């Protein structure tokens, strides 16, 4: 069995953690060939070649792929698909945008957010915001799969596999990139951080979110937020943890002023240790927390920053 795995490449740089976790998952299915696509991709291809279990890397370098627009990247994948049984990518927003398009072009169903691989045809995935887990068996000739990376450990390193440059596919000329608004931050990336500190509606305002950030910086953590906090404008959308935001599984997750709506729990309940600070002792977050502190966050968080 052969696997084509779309590496997560942003601005020519490989997102190693997400890609290596998808490789670990894909390794169960067969020989893994990585596809690195970007306006520049040589460095990303070289980095991907060193992920343990990778047999070969294809590097498609073209301006068309610079912003990972769904239409050209899908056409590229489809042009390569004949040689592979499984087409896989980590379940990032890019891959979730691209893979269903690929699947429809191949007339197969897509399997999104796969959290477990049973065999070459059978997969587990969360449904109903993680309230149930469904095991499904695909009857399609090719499987197109996005991997929920938080449930797999990243593959290690190996001596580099070979890298082959490939041609771009035709330009479908359907869409063009205008701009990215990316917040610059020195903090670790949310989905791969070892520690995440998240704030919820209880934080109360965008200004008071500084308190969350202060604790995060003390712990060397990434900052997350509940949907309620993002909807209220306290935090940017890319901080959202939950079923429709990011799914994280850090060693330590600190939930502050978060009640614990089911869709938030779906995004963080695989964390190793969960700490909750909330003044409402009935908050559902305490049902999943290893250590719960019933307290006003405006007293407890500054004290915690001081004592850690």
């Amino acid at each position, binding site marked *: 069995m052969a696997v084509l795995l779309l590496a997560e490449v942003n601005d020519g740089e490989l997102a190693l953690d997400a890609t290596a976790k998808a490789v670990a998952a894909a390794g169960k299915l067969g020989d893994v060939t990585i596809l690195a696509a970007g306006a520049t991709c040589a460095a990303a291809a070289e980095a991907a070649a060193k992920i343990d279990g990778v047999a070969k890397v294809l590097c498609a370098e073209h301006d068309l792929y610079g912003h990972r627009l769904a239409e050209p990247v899908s056409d590229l994948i489809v042009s390569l698909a004949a040689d592979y049984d499984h087409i896989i990518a980590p379940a990032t*927003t890019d891959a979730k945008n691209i893979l269903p398009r690929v699947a429809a072009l191949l007339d197969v169903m897509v399997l999104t957010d796969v959290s477990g691989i049973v065999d070459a045809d059978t997969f587990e995935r969360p449904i109903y915001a993680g309230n149930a887990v469904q095991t499904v068996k695909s009857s399609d000739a090719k499987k197109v799969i996005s991997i929920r990376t938080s449930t797999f450990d990243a593959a290690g390193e190996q001596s580099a596999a070979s890298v082959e440059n490939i041609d771009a596919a035709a330009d479908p000329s359907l869409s063009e990139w205008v701009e990215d608004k990316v917040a610059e931050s020195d903090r670790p990336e949310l989905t791969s951080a070892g520690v995440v500190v998240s704030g919820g509606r209880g934080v109360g305002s965008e200004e008071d979110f500084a308190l969350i950030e202060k604790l995060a910086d003390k712990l060397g953590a990434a900052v997350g937020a509940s949907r309620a906090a993002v909807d209220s404008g306290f935090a940017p959308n890319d901080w959202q943890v939950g079923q429709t935001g990011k799914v994280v599984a850090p060693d330590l997750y600190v939930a502050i002023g978060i009640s614990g709506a089911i869709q938030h729990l779906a995004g963080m309940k695989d964390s190793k240790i969960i700490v909750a600070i909330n003044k409402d002792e009935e908050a559902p977050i305490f049902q999943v927390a290893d250590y719960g502190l019933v307290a006003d966050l405006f007293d407890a968080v500054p004290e915690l920053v001081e004592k850690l």
Partner: protein
Amino acid sequence: MKVLVPVKRVIDYNVKVRVKADGSGVDLANVKMSMNPFDEIAVEEAIRLKEAGKADEVIAVSIGVKQAQETLRTALAMGADRAILVVAADDVHSDIEPLAVAKILKGVIDEEQPGLVIAGKQAIDNDMNATGQMLAALMGWSQATYANNIDIDGDHAVVTREVDGGLQTIKVKMPAIVTADLRLNEPRYASLPNIMKAKKKPLDEKTADDYGVDVIPRLEVVKTSEPEERAAGIKVGSVDELVEKLKEAGAV
């Protein structure tokens, strides 16, 4: 320009989901069903385009069981002009896969010729996040998923998307498929007079066969199970005790 909005009837987002004891699926008998929340956002956006003079007609379409009529009446009460129900299942427990839904929607598009399709980014039941992208592929159209802002500009749409790194703005050629994310808008509530009026708006009924689409699933559900429960831990009495416990656990 016509705007087509696919809507799905799903378990209401406030209802606690129960997995059936025999592992065959989630129990949907006698539970409250509503319009998928992301689809409500899509309907709202289409109505706003009409109110802004950028669209002439908003058509809601639902694919599934006969009871999805109610979901379509909700869309009509919000302000959609007419509705199409494509009956593709008899049992409320049979979910039509995104690929088959996209094929049926392609049939609807071929008849209706909309200039824009706005769909929800995912349904809160199967959480597939696939129908919009699959439909764009089958039509050979552009796609703009996870939209938090849409500007129609002649034969293009400029869409800002919620992505992992923040926000990305792209310009897509029309006709296009856009999928709605949470913060695109806040859907309105239907007023009582509009609910009454909606009962008189046209609702056509079709079947999957009318579009020549085979809805046999490609994915066989082997089983549905409860997720692993996470055991609750302990309550600590003070910040000092919390710090101590975290140190003991080697977490800080």
